[in-house]
């Protein structure tokens, strides 16, 4: 990106009113492999691309269960993501133990955001370099949130983060109006299609992606690889009959340097 004299410390403002360290942390999210989330009234689905360092190594785990009713997908520094998921699990279980009741997702997300904010205002800390898609259910319904390294959080109908996520976002923007009333299977199919967009022509197999779902009658869990393979095959055939031009993914994520990219 760019270097300047205001980006050494997270506690240094630039004259334009920007915290460069925080923005650099958000860049780290964009470099991670893609993760997407979408929700209906009753279900929330998370999906992620399993990137492995080499053919010999296993891929990094990017989807974590925080509680029966909450799960997260991460993009960015996976080590930071693991630490945060440990924090989320701890908060969930402490609340459960004290109140015998599941922690409302909205509150967990605020706690997480406040934790991230602390790291943007201490000179001896650095921001977490990971973006989290938090999927959860509570009394008020199904929710999907995105937590930023900046300490901001937003609720979404559907969202994508990580590298080549713009392609997935374009797909989701086209289809999101139908999500609220979608069935579980439709949601998962949309998730797989969105993930496919980020692959840029690479073949979508069950080994390259992980899909997880949570619902009122379904605790958060990762869907079995075989089930994914079946789904992929079922719509691969449909897709061959339909037109199959992959939309040109926007690779220029470095654009937008001139405007403070606090909101994605």
């Amino acid at each position, binding site marked *: 990106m760019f270097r300047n004299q205001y980006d050494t410390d997270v506690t240094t403002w630039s004259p334009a009113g920007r915290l460069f360290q925080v923005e650099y942390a958000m860049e780290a999210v964009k470099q991670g492999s893609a993760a997407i989330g979408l929700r209906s009234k009753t279900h929330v689905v998370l999906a992620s691309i399993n990137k492995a360092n080499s053919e010999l190594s296993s891929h990094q785990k990017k989807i974590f269960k925080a509680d029966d009713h909450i799960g997260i997908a991460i993009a960015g520094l996976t080590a930071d993501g693991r630490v945060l998921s440990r924090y989320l699990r701890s908060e969930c279980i402490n609340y459960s*133990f*004290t*109140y*015998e*009741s599941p922690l409302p997702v*909205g*509150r967990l997300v605020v706690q997480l955001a406040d934790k991230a904010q602390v790291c943007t205002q201490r000179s001896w800390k650095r921001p977490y370099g990971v973006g989290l898609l938090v999927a959860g259910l509570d*009394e*008020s319904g199904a929710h999907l949130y995105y937590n930023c390294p900046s300490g901001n959080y937003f609720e979404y109908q559907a969202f994508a983060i990580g590298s080549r996520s713009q392609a997935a976002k374009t797909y989701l923007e086209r289809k999101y109006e139908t999500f609220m009333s979608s069935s579980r299977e439709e949601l998962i199919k949309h998730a797989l299609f969105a993930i496919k967009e980020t692959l840029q022509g690479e073949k979508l197999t069950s080994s390259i992606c992980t899909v997880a779902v949570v619902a009122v009658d379904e605790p958060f869990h990762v869907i079995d690889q075989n089930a994914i393979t079946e789904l992929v095959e079922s719509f691969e055939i449909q897709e061959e009959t339909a037109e199959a031009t992959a939309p040109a993914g926007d690779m220029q994520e470095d654009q937008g340097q001139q405007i403070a990219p606090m909101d994605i």
Partner: protein
Amino acid sequence: MNYFEGLEGTVSSESDSQRTLTPYVTGTSVIGIKYKDGILMTADMGGSYGSTLRYKGVERMKPVGKHSIIGASGEISDFQEIMRYLDELIIHDNMWDDGNSLGPKEIHNYLTRVMYNRRNKFDPLWNTLVLGGIKNGQKYLGMVSSIGVHFEDDHIATGFGNHLARPILRDEWKEDMSFEDAVKLLEKCMLVLLYRDRSAINKLQITKITEEGATVYQPYALKTHWGFTAFKNPANGGAEGSW
């Protein structure tokens, strides 16, 4: 005045910690039942100082948040402290301002944790608490003791109520009683307690919680009957002594 005058007699060292050894001002039974629209709870307004019926205006039941009511028997000052904990809990819950709110189940479990933790420190809160409420149509009624024993049921009684009211409730409580029937049932239990529990006084309150909210009714007295010949005139009537 010597600043340390009052402290002369006390020795504060790490080994000697302050803890509740005996209760001083106590309340007697609390009874709670589920009925059609929610929960009904009743307790008298007595605060006994040992065997003296010292205070006669003690409110032993209070609303908690939007969905629950709590009733306490045992040490009144400990109940007041519990109310402070609960007020703080509810304030923080409201401060989230996010549409979520703590229901009776959550508060019952919170209290269980508090009571059990104090018991583990050998510094119990000398109360038996009855927690009732209704949220999203789900009725909830439970109890926690000073040692952390907790459970839920359709009808709850503490203190003497355990022995005198519970058999009546077991026999006569039904699902979805009307308000009038439920009050009659509670009054029947309270009457037995009034006759037989020496710490009971004839000034009782009823508290109700429904989806609309909590209502603490004005105190009133029950009608008692003492006109038995054996009681009026034991010497000539028909009593061979008082039993």
